[in-house]
């Protein structure tokens, strides 16, 4: 990326966050991972914690997130990011630790690790991106795939009699006594993106204040594997995903409430 000289009579009001590298991402056009990456990076910049943050990338579409966040990063085995983050944070309590995980990674193969990390009240933050499908492997049924939703491994639509029901993670984690702040947001329109950023910021602030485990579930899209255009995918998610995965906080301890109120 070349440097652009700003004319003397103009003010710079929008730029790449310092917490993002200049790498081109591998995400599909229309994918919302880029938006969520940017929100996390803006929050790290605004809180001034880039240089003391350690992230853990998952297995899934965001497996290469460590190239995109300009912070120290580890790449976990599938589903194990919360266990790695536990190890990282326990020996580095002065650092800010986060995991960035998708729905297959967190809600299927890694369900034990996320539940126990949350219930121990580990002092890290999880960004959980729910797009109701396995993206990287090419569109298979995820633990969050909606009833009736067609995927390459549920070709006639998810049959809950056979495959069970989609996992509501924010409710599950929010119900654990160890979690401090758990919320579900969506990056499906501009107001939602703004609310998501606020939630991500509060989650990191809760960690910085030592209040406990925080998780932000972000409803996202996968227009490629949903076989839709990007705009159509946003509309589909608003209509169908939000109905099954209601937006809002599922856990906010008094400490986090006070933190939020103080802003």
């Amino acid at each position, binding site marked *: 990326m070349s440097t652009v000289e700003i004319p003397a009579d103009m003010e710079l009001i929008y730029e790449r966050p310092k917490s993002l590298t200049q790498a081109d991402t591998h995400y599909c056009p229309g994918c919302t991972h880029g938006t969520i990456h940017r929100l996390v990076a803006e929050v790290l910049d605004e809180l001034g914690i880039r240089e003391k943050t350690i992230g853990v990338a998952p297995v899934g579409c965001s497996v290469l997130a460590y*190239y995109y966040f*300009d912070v120290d990063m580890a790449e976990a085995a599938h589903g194990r990011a919360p*266990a790695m983050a*536990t*190890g990282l944070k326990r*020996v580095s309590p002065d*650092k800010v630790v986060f995991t960035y995980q998708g729905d297959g990674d967190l809600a299927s193969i890694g369900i034990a690790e996320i539940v*126990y990390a949350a219930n121990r009240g580990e002092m890290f933050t999880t960004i959980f991106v729910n797009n109701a499908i396995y993206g990287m492997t090419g569109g298979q049924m995820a633990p969050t795939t909606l009833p009736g939703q067609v995927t390459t491994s549920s070709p006639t639509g998810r049959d809950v009699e056979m495959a069970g029901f989609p996992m509501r993670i924010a409710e599950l984690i929010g119900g654990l006594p160890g979690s401090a702040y758990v919320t579900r947001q969506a990056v499906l329109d501009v107001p939602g993106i703004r609310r998501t950023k606020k939630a991500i910021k509060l989650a990191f602030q809760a960690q910085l204040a030592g209040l406990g485990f925080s998780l932000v579930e972000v409803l996202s899209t996968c227009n490629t594997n949903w076989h839709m255009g990007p705009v159509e995918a946003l509309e589909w998610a608003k209509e169908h995903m939000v109905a099954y995965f209601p937006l809002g906080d599922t856990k906010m301890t008094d400490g986090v409430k006070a933190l939020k109120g103080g802003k």
Partner: protein
Amino acid sequence: MAKELLEGNAAIAEAAIRAGVEAFFGYPITPQTEVLEHFSKRMPEEGRVFLQAESEVASINMVYGAACTGARVMTSSSSPGVSLMQEGISYIACSEVPVVLTNIMRGGPGLGNVQPAQGDYFQAVKSAGHGDYHMIVLAPANVQEAIDYVVLAFDLAEKYRTVVMIVADGSIGQMMEPAELPPMRPVRPPEERPSWALTGAKGREHNIVTSLYLGAENMEEINLRLQAKLKEIAANEVRWKEYYTEDADVLLVAFGTVGRICQTVVREARAKGIKAGLLRPITLWPFPSARIAELAGQVRGILTVEMNAGQMVDDVRLAVECVCPVRFYGRMGGIVPLPDDILPELEALIAEVSQG
């Protein structure tokens, strides 16, 4: 420091504490649970990290995460639990972060039992996790060696940025015998963490710890680097012990618990006029192949004794290259062979080679 009466498992944990281990993550499983219990008491006393994980899958990944910061870290388990850790071990090996773990082996396969066994030799030496790599594998035969090799394991793990496994069994882990603990080493201060470690990208490029290399050329390059490192380890770190090999004309090869028992076999054989010797591998990987090959030129035959169906014997045969006969005696399922079981096997080998 004076010798004390120490239990093997507790001694392993205390040796690690004195070697400056900063964090232990583990899960209870017999016959190694005393390792975890000792850490649970002592780590908080020392102001260090102890965490009982929800599973061995979690504990190996907690160790992986903590090791990414350059901290000295450890986990411990027994056979079925170590099987659960295989995925994590492979990631750690490729990521080149230093980790120490113990396998206090028990009878298998499956749930097996909790008796002493050596059925995990192949897993430890040849097939830890997926992909091309080896762990350094250290095999103590008594409590003192268990202590000494824990300390050595941390140094080797950091020197080569690799995984070091200590393999023992319940007879070493749960036996008490006099042994000497090392002096307490100070924990390395956080500012002395290595340059590759994840410590926050302050005033430098961001560090990445990964085992993902999507391009075939990149992945081969990483493999070549790992193989070069393994070659260096094989050249520098082979360890073994010998008993009465100078004039031996028949050689026993055995490791760990049964290696110790074979010392008695050598003495009893010598009392009968048999010139027996023993080579006891300390590093199961890298294997003391060169020394065994040398001794194969000196002796008339080799008897390998193991507490399994015959695993290390393959490596002995590869080393010997048919220079002399290599025979095997083993017991399985948690049976510990006694000198009286082994001596007749040695005599049968002598009878066989005398006929030729």
